[in-house]
């Protein structure tokens, strides 16, 4: 299915140098450098407001950076947006979907917008709905979906044009465990066939089990990056994360909150 989309040469899937983004007075991303090797399953972790979503939006051509350089499989993202968008599939957190379409219509729409022929879209849309346990809900309007179903249909939209790089912002939020396991299988298969996946998540256990590479981001900078084993350095990813980011409090909460 993706034979024509093999990585060529040794260019990293994503290469970011000196990325800066400011909203008013607030610096969201402060000179961030990041390398995501081609064919890796890459986890991006960080506290709330660390700049994960902002970084991923800029890396996929949705938000214009103030400064810095982003290359996606060797393509300069902000000089060749069209080429970038063919390479990458995105699941954004916190944007709406065209939710007055039925599930199957929405996936079809995403496929046709990407310029795929109608027959190819029809075949892939059917496959995707089946893979994501959405077959029976294909005719229901997305506005009537549950939160987890909405996530899954958005994932289908990100997959339909068979990208080389998948960027998933919080893909497992409010997804039930069975569907989450199915999604993980799909992503593992995708990485196994040479694709690259970047996920941002708060679920450290999940990232530690799932990802072979990981980067810890806080206050718009990368604190640590490398293979998962390198970054966690013998302890669990969660402990290492807390150690890097800081902000843990000692003690058991305020006096008045203790019942005895």
């Amino acid at each position, binding site marked *: 299915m993706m034979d024509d989309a093999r990585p060529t040469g040794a260019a990293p899937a994503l290469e970011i140098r000196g990325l800066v983004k400011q909203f008013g007075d607030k610096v969201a991303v402060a000179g961030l450098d990041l390398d995501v090797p081609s064919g890796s399953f890459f986890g991006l972790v960080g506290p709330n407001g660390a700049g994960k979503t902002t970084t991923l939006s800029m890396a*996929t*051509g*949705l*938000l*214009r950076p103030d400064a810095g350089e982003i290359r996606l499989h060797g393509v300069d993202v902000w000089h060749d*947006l*069209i080429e*970038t*968008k*063919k390479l990458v599939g*995105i699941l*954004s957190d*916190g*944007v*709406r*979907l*065209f*939710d*007055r*379409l*039925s599930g*199957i*219509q929405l996936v*079809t*729409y*995403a496929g*046709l*917008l*990407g*310029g795929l*022929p*109608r027959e190819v*879209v029809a075949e892939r849309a059917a496959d995707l709905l089946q893979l994501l346990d959405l077959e*029976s*809900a*294909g*005719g*229901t*309007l997305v*506005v*009537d*979906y549950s939160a987890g179903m909405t996530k899954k249909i958005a994932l289908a*939209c*990100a997959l339909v*044009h068979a990208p080389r790089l998948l960027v998933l912002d919080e893909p497992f939020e409010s997804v039930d465990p069975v569907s989450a396991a199915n999604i993980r299988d799909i992503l593992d298969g995708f990485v196994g066939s040479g694709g690259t996946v970047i996920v941002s998540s708060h679920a450290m256990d999940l990232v530690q089990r799932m990802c072979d590479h990981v980067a810890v981001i806080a206050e718009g900078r990368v604190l640590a990056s490398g293979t998962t084993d390198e970054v966690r350095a013998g302890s669990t990813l969660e402990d290492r994360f807390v150690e890097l980011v800081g902000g843990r409090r000692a003690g058991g909460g305020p006096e008045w909150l203790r019942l005895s």
Partner: protein
Amino acid sequence: MVATLVRLRFLLLWNALQRSPWQMVAVVIGGLYGLGILIGVVAGLVGLGFAPIDVARTAVVLAGAALVLGWTFLPVLTSGIDQTVEPARLVAFPIPIPKLLVGLAVSGVLGVPGIVTSVAALATTLTWWRYPLAALAAVVCAVIGVLTCVIGSRMLVALVSVIGEGRRFREAKGLVVFIPLILLGPIILGLQRLLSDDFDSLPQIASIVAWTPFGAIWAVPADVAAGQFGRAGLEFLIGVATLVVFALAWRWGLAKALETPARSMPAKAAKRGLGFFGVFPGTPAGAVAARALTYWIRDPRYAQSLITLPLVPVFVLVYAGSNGDLTPLNSVGPIIAFLLALSIYADVSYDNTAFALHLQRGVSGRDDRIGRVLALAVFAVPLSLLTVLATVWLTGAWTALPGLLGITVGVLLSGFGLSSLVSGRFVFAVPAPGESPFKSKPGGGFSLTLSLFATWGILAVLVLPELVFAIVSFVSGQIVYGWISLALGILLGAVLLVIGIRVGGDIYDRRGPELLAALQRLK
């Protein structure tokens, strides 16, 4: 607790305003407008003090009843009640219902409409300054009247939300009540004519209204002034009883709403197939068109502008004041074309952040523009042209046909082009998907109206050539000018359409990320 709720209300308003200086400007202008009306009303009420009791009574009772009716029913019709402190959001807090009721009522009175109403109601005291006892009664009655207004508005909203919930019910209701709302203008005009013919019956009407729950409280001071204490007492009882019944009904509705917080409806029976996606060409532009046309049917925000169309002839006939003469009907075709052609000038804003999908998939600006125009043109072009034919057939003005077609075609094509340009460049504060089509962000309604008028003005200039030739043809009766207008409409319109799509598409290609960022700020 009550003070906390009231503070919360102002804090929410203030924070909402701080997000955009332009909204602030709009709110200030809106406030000045309200102030102007208020000054006029107060002056009028003071002036009534010099009139005979009968005249003052009639005016105060009718205006007061209209005020209570408006407060009670308009919020349900428009869903436009100021829900900054929404009961549904307070469900999780342990607030006793009586305190909640008082808090919500006070914060209702302290809104801009509440303050305006209070000042106007208290100004009735000045109407009765020659009768101290009546003036005293007016103060008490004004307080009761204002409370009736505010509680009435909250009550009906609470009751309606008990009766129905769920997306479909809400949307259907929004559309059904829209019709009387648009017809409000013609209805008022009709009432005016009726009354101006029969001015002497007004006092009688007022006397009847004074016995209804809506008018009773406003009649009390007048009857005190006239020395009719028995009648005043009865009217006062009716007024107080109304307030009590409203409050009890509100309490019941609110308690019910707090017990059963909003929940989403279970998924309805599924539709099969691809709908319009199977009909339009399988290209990006075709997909955009299929999506847009689906939204024209499924999204109440679009359906709203379609419902207006059949009412255009009614408007034209009422406002033209025709007496059996059907000639004004000829303008219906061009008006419908005008409304439809500009209906997509805020199309990207209606997408809200769902627009991100277009950016993610790298849709070119031209494909995006063409798709949106195509979806509209599919029904707008035949609908407008058929309307022109139908009206000309009705009026028998066949010599005007080429000119009318010229204006209509020109308006449609130039309007498509203009909309393509505007929606690719600007983002407006329109209701978000799923919100009521009438919900306006603070100040958003104002800036939207302003930009709408600006767009209308520009379109009027763009179709000036067609318009001039068509009018020359109507006036002179020389049909050849009509044909020139039609030729101009097709040629000039086509050129403007191509320019609009190209320039709008280029702007879109260049500024796509900025467009998305603006949409995200609005969210």
